[in-house]
Every structure is written in C-alpha cells, then in structure tokens.
C-alpha cells in the first residue's frame, strides 16, 4: 500500500525499505482499524441474528464534547451522566465500548462485561437499592426486565450460558452489591466494570490486552474519526449487493490504444448501440481515420476527435460477471498527465496498455524524444497508479497483430517492463499479463482465436483477468468523504451535480453534507450512477450526487463533500514524506512545483527540506540537505498558493496522497505526514 517507486530489489528478509516502512506504519493502523470494524460488524451480525426485531432505534448522533443526546428520547444529557436522565438509557459511547469488547472477546468473558453494563442501569437500581446481592439470578432478572423495557439490545441467551460458565464471578461482583443509591451506582459503575474485568481476566487473561486497547479509542479527543458510528442504513445489504463496483483506470503511453481498447470492450459487451457504433465508424472513415472508430466511443469532444488524442478522463460503465466496472479511460499524452492524475486517482485497479510495436514500446519506456531526459508515459503512469494506491495491475500488451503475435516480442516486453514494475512496488503475483489486439478482437472478452497467439498463450483473456482482480476494500464505517472530481451544471433545471468516488462512508438522498472548501451545508437531492438513480451510495461507488441548497459557483472540482460533523481540514502548508522520481534537475529549497492531491491541483513550492531519509531504514539520515536527487526520499515542507482539502495519510489515504510535478514531469510522489497550518 505504500508509494514505492524505488528501484530497489525487494529482498525478502529486508523489510525496511521506503515502501516497506510505509507498509508497516500503515498496516499497523489498518489492522487496528480492521479489527474495530470487524468488531462492529460482528456486533451488527449479532444484533441481526439474536434480536433484530428488538433493535433499538439507534439514531446516529455525533457526540458533542459537552452534552450527549440520548439515543432514545434525544434528551441532551451532561457529559458526566452515564445514563439518560429521562429514560435511563445508557450513553452511546459507553455501550459502544462495551459492545466492542463484546465483539472482540467474542466469547463469554468480555460478553459478561457488556451485559452488565447494559443491564445495570435499566431496572437494576431498584434492586440494588433493595440491597439484594448481585447474583447470577439478579443478573438474569435484570436483563429480562430490561429487555421487556424494550431499550437496548440484549444478549441474554448468550449471557445465561456465560454465567453458568463463570461461577466465581458472583463473589467477585459482591462489593458492588452494597450500593444503595442510584447516584452512587453511577459513580461506582466503573469499579464494577473493573471487577467484572478482573473476573474475565481469570477466565481469559490473554484477552485482557485487547480489551484494554479497545477501551482506549472511546476516551480520545472529542471529535475524532474513531467516534463516528455509521448509521444503520449504511451497512445494510452490503453483502447481498449483486455486483461490486470496481474503478478501473486505463493508462499507458500516448497512442498505445487505450481508448480503442475501452471502446472495443464496451462495444463487445453491448454497451454501445449498433447505431452509435455505425455513426462513429462512418464519421471516422469520413475523416480518414478509420482506426479511430472505437476510440471515438470514448473521445466525444470535437477537439479530441480532431486530433485523435484523448485529453480528459472519460468515464464509462460495463458489467462483468463479477464487477460493475467503471472504466476511467485516461489520456496518455504527456501534456495531459495532470488530467490523468485528477481523473484516475479514484482507481481501484488499473490496466496498463502497452504498444507492442517496435519502437512504440521503447518510446513509452524512455520518452518520446531521443536524447531528452525524461521518462515515457508507460513508466510515469505505472508509477502514478502505484502511488494512487493501486496494487493490482493488468498489463495489456496491445497491437500484437502488428508484430505477428510474436512470443519473442511478448517475452521481451514482459521482461523489460516486469523489472520496472517490480521496482515500482507491484508484486509479481498481482500483475497479470495479457497479450491482445483491440483492433482484431483477440483475447478481449473471449480467449484468442488466432493460431499464432493460441500456440503459445493459454492464459486468461482480458475480461477474465478483470474478473480475477481482488475486490477492493471499502471503508463504509468512517465518516463520509467524497472528493469532487467533476461538477456538472444543468442550466435548465438549475441543478448542480458533483461527480466522484466515495472514499469512505455513504450517502443517500436526503443526507446532510458539507462541501469543503467553504464549509457550505447542502442536502443530497438524488444520486445517479451511470444516469440511473440509486438510493444509496457507499464507499467505492463512483456516482454523481445532485446537491440542493449549495451555491453552484462554490462547487469546484478539487473540493470534498463530507459529513457535517467531520469536515475535512484545509491547509496551505504541509509536511510530506516524498520519494523523488527520475528527475534530471534536483529538487531545491524553493523549487516550484505543481501540487496534485486527489482532484485538486495547486501551485506550490518546497519551503524546506527537513531531512533526507535513509532508503533502507527509513530513518532521517541527514538534516537540511542542499538538494534532493533522483530516487532519494525525504521529509519536506511545501507551501501551497492556496489551501486545499487535505488529511494526514494515516487518517485518510485518499486525501493524503500527493504528486509533485514540474516542467511537465512528475518529480515526486509522497504522502502527507502533517498539516502545518490547518484552517477549519
């Protein structure tokens, strides 16, 4: 998941490279996160299985630092209160930590704790006041009455079993039985919890560490992402969705046939009507560019057709047997790399199209003009998609017909490019190689028929390769973040729609959102996907969101739509960890660069080179160096002309990946490590 572009052998026992270092940091975080997500999910499952009909109306309310509102009666209680003053329901975070423990423990020990937390506040105070010792019986009674009271979810069945298994818990919980007042009960509740935890310690001491760890997040800063609890609708029917969305970027050197390949795919899969295709063919022939017929399906603007070059990222959709694929056909021309960056950052996987022709492949690798330093777009794009976070790549070796389906050529390209891809940080196992011909329809959606190809190639065809991609992971349980890729205004309706991919969270019609920059509140009127209205969009979906109540002039590509309680920070000065690519001119203090982050771009300059990082250990090896040369990694500070929406990479991957370009080349890729002057 790192942003490795280092030409460095990936030694197995040597897990300290730049990339690996990131991997580690990031993986730690991610594992951590995954756990809690799992905990949530298992918790949800449990809810669903055991007492789905008694689910509380768990309306999601963001907790304010001073008051918390009851999930049932919405009464605003003071922070110090553990239960609601009006209806006696437990404070959410309190229950949540219990629930989490429940999920993690996943067995009796931790479960008992949460049950206790759940049962005691309900009807228990009465019993406690009556000085009844808390015994297994009372537990049960309490929980039963609690359930009857129809408040929070109960796991009484599980609890019965568990209490039977924990006889010694009785005596451990004795002290709390002496409590005489409701008030006192609250004060001592934590004690009780601790005792309970002690008991669980006896049973499963190994779980203790996890339990403690689990408890920590809920005690952190007032508004942090950890405290976000997704609404119920966000997670529902997540698994029974028929086809998962896959954002597939098609990248490669100019004239390698990206648009033609995309057009051909769409045509073969019946996404382009016969009439349309016929029209394109006729028009292309009229212009004397017969071979562009398929590309024209993607390149719709007159300018692009005129010049036969894709200029902006085109979006198209098709369904494979496993995925709903969103094709992002990107421009290959050197001058349009910024467009490619802003259009294709949303990719989950990518097809790298390589021209097999003699000379064309070489141009793609080493740049168009011989003698001029710089890299071709095959290399630049591969590096870029890797730093978008894409780790699965299909290399489509196109125009095999021109080289007579020669195995020799295929092997040559595979060897040359393979070394480079490895140096970028693509694992061999996640790179698929597909020789094909888009013009002659070989090996696209069905295996090849030409004997010259079938004689030596028995692998997957392109569509199969797409289907065998691993489904990308999605973060629905985090607050909504949707970088705006594009804004479409419909003059007649006065409507304004923001297009983009949801990075985390979910939205539905009627959701309240905030548009950054500007912090403008807005309401989602409807959501469209490939011109079809859909009710809910979740992380990973590429949609057009029609907004209501927002000044359309303030809605710009590069902005971010986010959850009203979790606005994305803005910053104009950032600390980055960067890796310098193959650049001729070293990066100096004060170098001017174009700064690309998600869909935003801004002019920037290097304000400070903090330190050089050692390639092997990732530790700072030299502070304040004179300049950065190719393939060095470093910590730098950049000053942007204007603030952009940005987030530390550790908090949000999509908003923390940056690309620095200068003189028409990508000079460095990196991640945001710190926001220096963030403005809310």
């Amino acid at each position, binding site marked *: 998941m790192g942003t490795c572009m280092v030409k460095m052998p990936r030694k197995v026992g040597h897990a300290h490279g730049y990339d690996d270092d990131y991997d580690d940091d990031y993986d730690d975080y991610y594992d951590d996160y995954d756990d809690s997500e799992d905990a949530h999910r298992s918790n949800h499952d449990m809810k669903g299985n055991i007492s789905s009909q008694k689910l509380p109306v768990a309306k999601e309310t963001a907790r304010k630092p001073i008051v918390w509102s009851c999930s049932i009666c919405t009464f605003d209680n003071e922070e110090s209160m553990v239960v609601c003053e009006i209806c006696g329901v437990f404070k959410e975070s309190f229950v949540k930590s219990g629930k989490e423990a429940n999920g993690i423990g996943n067995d009796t020990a931790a479960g008992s704790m949460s049950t206790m937390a759940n049962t005691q506040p309900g009807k228990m105070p009465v019993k406690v006041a009556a000085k009844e010792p808390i015994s297994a019986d009372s537990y049960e009674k309490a929980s039963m009455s609690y359930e009857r009271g129809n408040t929070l979810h109960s796991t009484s069945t599980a609890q019965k079993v568990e209490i039977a298994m924990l006889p010694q818990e009785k005596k451990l919980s004795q002290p709390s039985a002496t409590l005489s007042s409701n008030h006192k009960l609250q004060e001592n509740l934590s004690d009780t919890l601790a005792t309970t935890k002690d008991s669980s310690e006896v049973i499963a001491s190994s779980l203790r560490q996890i339990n403690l760890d689990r408890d920590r997040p809920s005690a952190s800063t007032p508004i942090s992402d950890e405290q976000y609890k997704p609404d119920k609708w966000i997670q529902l029917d997540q698994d029974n969705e028929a086809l998962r969305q896959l954002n597939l970027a098609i990248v490669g050197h100019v004239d390698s046939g990206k648009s033609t390949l995309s057009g051909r795919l769409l045509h073969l899969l019946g996404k382009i009507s016969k009439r349309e295709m016929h029209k394109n063919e006729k028009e292309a022939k009229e212009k004397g560019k017969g071979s562009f017929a398929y590309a024209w399906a993607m*390149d*719709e*603007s*007159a*300018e*692009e057709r005129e*010049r036969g*070059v894709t*200029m*902006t*990222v*085109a*979006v198209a959709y098709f369904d494979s047997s496993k995925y709903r694929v969103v094709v992002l056909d990107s421009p290959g*021309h050197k*001058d*349009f790399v*910024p467009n490619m960056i802003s*259009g294709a950052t949303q990719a989950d996987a990518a097809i790298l199209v390589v021209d097999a022709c003699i000379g064309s492949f070489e141009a793609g690798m080493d740049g168009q003009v011989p003698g001029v330093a710089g890299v071709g777009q095959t290399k630049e794009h591969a590096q870029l998609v890797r730093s978008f976070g894409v780790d699965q790549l299909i290399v489509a070796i196109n125009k095999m017909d021109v080289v007579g389906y020669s195995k020799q050529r295929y092997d040559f390209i595979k060897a040359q490019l393979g070394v480079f891809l490895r140096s970028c940080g693509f694992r061999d196992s996640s790179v698929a190689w597909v020789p094909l011909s888009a013009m002659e329809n070989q090996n696209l959606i069905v295996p090849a028929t030409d004997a010259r190809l079938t004689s030596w190639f028995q692998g997957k065809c392109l569509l199969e390769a797409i289907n065998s991609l691993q489904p990308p992971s999605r973060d629905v349980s985090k607050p909504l973040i949707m970088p705006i*890729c*594009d*804004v*479409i*205004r419909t003059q007649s309706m006065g409507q304004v729609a923001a*297009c983009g991919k949801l990075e985390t969270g979910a939205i539905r019609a009627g959701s309240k959102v905030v548009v950054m920059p500007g912090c403008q509140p807005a309401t989602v009127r409807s959501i469209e996907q490939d*011109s079809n209205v859909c009710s809910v969009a979740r992380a990973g979906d590429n949609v057009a969101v029609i907004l209501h109540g927002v000044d359309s002039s303030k809605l*710009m*590509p590069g902005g971010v739509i986010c959850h009203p309680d979790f606005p994305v920070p803005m910053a104009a000065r950032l600390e980055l960890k960067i890796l310098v690519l193959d650049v*001729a*001119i*070293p990066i*100096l*203090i*004060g*170098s*001017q660069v*174009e700064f690309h982050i998600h869909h935003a771009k801004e*002019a920037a*300059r290097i304000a400070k*080179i903090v330190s050089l990082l050692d390639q092997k250990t990732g530790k700072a090896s030299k*502070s*304040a*160096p*004179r*300049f950065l*040369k190719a393939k060095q990694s470093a910590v730098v500070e950049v000053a942007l002309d204007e603030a952009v929406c940005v987030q530390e990479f550790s908090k949000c991957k999509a908003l923390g990946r940056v690309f620095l*370009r*200068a*003189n*028409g080349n990508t000079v460095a890729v990196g991640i945001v490590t710190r926001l220096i002057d963030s403005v809310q």
Partner: protein
Amino acid sequence: MQLIWKNLVPDGPGTVKLKPVEDDDMWHAYNLICPGDTVQATTVRKVLREMASGGRDAERVKLKLEIRVEAVDYDKEGSVLRVRGKNITENEHVKIGQFHTLELELHRPFVISKDIWDSIARDILHQASDPAASADLSVILMQEGLAQLFLIGRSITTVRSRIETSIPRKHGPAIAGYESALKKFFENVLQAWLKHIDFSIVRCVVIASPGFTKDQFRDYLFLEAQRRDLRAVIENKSRIILAHATSGYKHSLKDVLESPNVMNLIKDTKAAQEVRALKDFFTMLSNDSSRACYGPRHVEFANDRMAVETLLITDNLFRNADIAERQRYVHLVESVKDSGGTVHIFSSMHVSGEQLEQLTGIAALLRFPLPELDDLEM
C-alpha cells in the same frame, strides 16, 4: 528614465536628478531609493491653517519638499512609488521633522542624494538610463479553465488579468456543456486581450499552453476577429505566436521564455539573459552538482575560496532595510567581480527572478567542484 543631471563621486556622496518615463522606471527608482537617502520632489500636501477668527481651514498646497527616506513602497499594479520620510527643508507649511509621503509618478522629475553611491546603485542608474530596446512582450499563459495575461517589460513582469473558470469533464450527453464552457472561457480571455493588449506597445503576443488549448484559442481568436472586425488582431496576425508551456501557472512562464522562437524575439534583453543564466545553473546542478550552490551561506563559503564564476542574485537582497546586510551583498558582488566572475542581478519582478528568490535569492556557478558543500547544512 531620463538622467537630467548627475553629480556624484563613486563610492562617495552625490546627487542625481531623474525623470521616469515608463513603467519600468518606477521599478528602477524603487531599487535605487534606500532608507537613509534624501529625495526631493514636488508634491501636494493638505495644510491646516488657523484663521484669525479661530476657525480652521484646510487647503491643498503644491510644494517642493525634500525628505529623508524611511520607507519605500512600490505598487506594481498602479506603477506608483510612495516614499515616506521626515521633512528636512524649511518650508512655510511643513515644519522640519514632520512626516510626509512623496508619491513619485511618471514624467515628474525627482532628485536623489545618497551618502554613498556604491557599485550596485551606480549599476542601476546606468541600466535605468540606458535607452536600449525594451522587451515589451505579452504572454497569455493558459490551460483549460485558467488563463493569465502577462506583460513583460524590461525589468518587470506584471499580471494584467487572470481568468479562472470551471470546465466540466466530458460526460456523455453533457458534452455540450463542456464545449459551451470552453467557449465562454475563451470569450473571457478575448475580452481581457482586447482590454490589455495594445499593439503599439507590445512587440508581440505569445499564446502558450500545454496541449492544444493554445491552438484552440488562436482559432477562436481569428474567427472572432473576422466576425467582429477586430482590426487590431487582424492586422497583427504575424505578431501572434504560439509556444508550448508545461502548465498554466505563472512559474511556467519561464518555459515560454526559454522556448526558441520566443527567445529569438527577446534575446538581447535582460529578461532573456536572466532566463539563460538560471537555466545554466540548473543544468550545472543536474550535471555536476558540486559545481553549483545556492543560499547565502554556501555562496559565501564558495566565494571565500574564490570559486564563484557566475553569481546570480536578486535585487531584493539589496533592498534590505538593514544597511549592514546590504553592504554584505554589495561586497560579495564586488569581490566576485574582482576575481573575474560575472554577476547577474535578477529583477525580482520577472519569473526567473521570482524563482531565484524562492531559492533563497542567491546562487552561484563555480569554477571548480566543491564537494565540501554537501557537508554544510543549509
């Protein structure tokens, strides 16, 4: 700038009378006038007078004042120089020691006296009064959705207009939206063109952009010129040239000035020299990094070893309010010159100067490699 008379001793005191005649001259004057100098000019001041009846009366009086400079303020948009200081000549309206701000304007002569006319100041004076051809060039730097119109003079580059619009991506049926948005964008650029480009001043107009935006705009321009009968455009078609730029941001202006066909037009000017010198610096840095350095500490270190062959320095550093600091740089420049090196003083109003300023404002190409530099922290 017209030098009306001059009475000065090199590295000693002296007085000159100057008359600014074009926008660039204000910039030279800004570089010339330092805190501590005295400036004499005609000015208008509001004077309060107490009348015999006890009432007060305000009156605007035109006077000739001489002030000792405390601060200089340059307005690059309006090309006005404001000099603030204390009055030193007795006057019936203004007492000695009273503050006054002189506003220096075009075609109004003024007199500067300095205690020390150092080499830098003499250079500026020489340059300013040199009637060499000025490089009046207009550049429209654009990319889809962003256009900037620059006017490049001899020593200053000004942004005349900046147009920014959001252009949607192509999107199936919304393709018409893309096209109309682009057309509207071009229309805005054309309006800016008509407002700011006067072919009697500029030698030529460069349209620069990455990709095809420049061609698209030129086509649009010629089409509209025919349609609306814009004589200025039609008659000067040959003076409109295209150039490639890597982006639409201001720092790409450097690429435009470097491109061969533009370089030809401005080759003998200061702007072109600066662009070339900076390019040399970068080439050296990438080819033999121990023979190039930047930052005051490193350059002084190199100079101590007589290693500086070419010194690049921005005029900003001489404008330092701290006299000692200015002296330090003046000495550096003189010592480089003495040891046979060349010195380029960059105008911080040009892109190349702006870029150099970002790189700490000072850089040098060395005669021989100094690998020790790598061990010296910035």
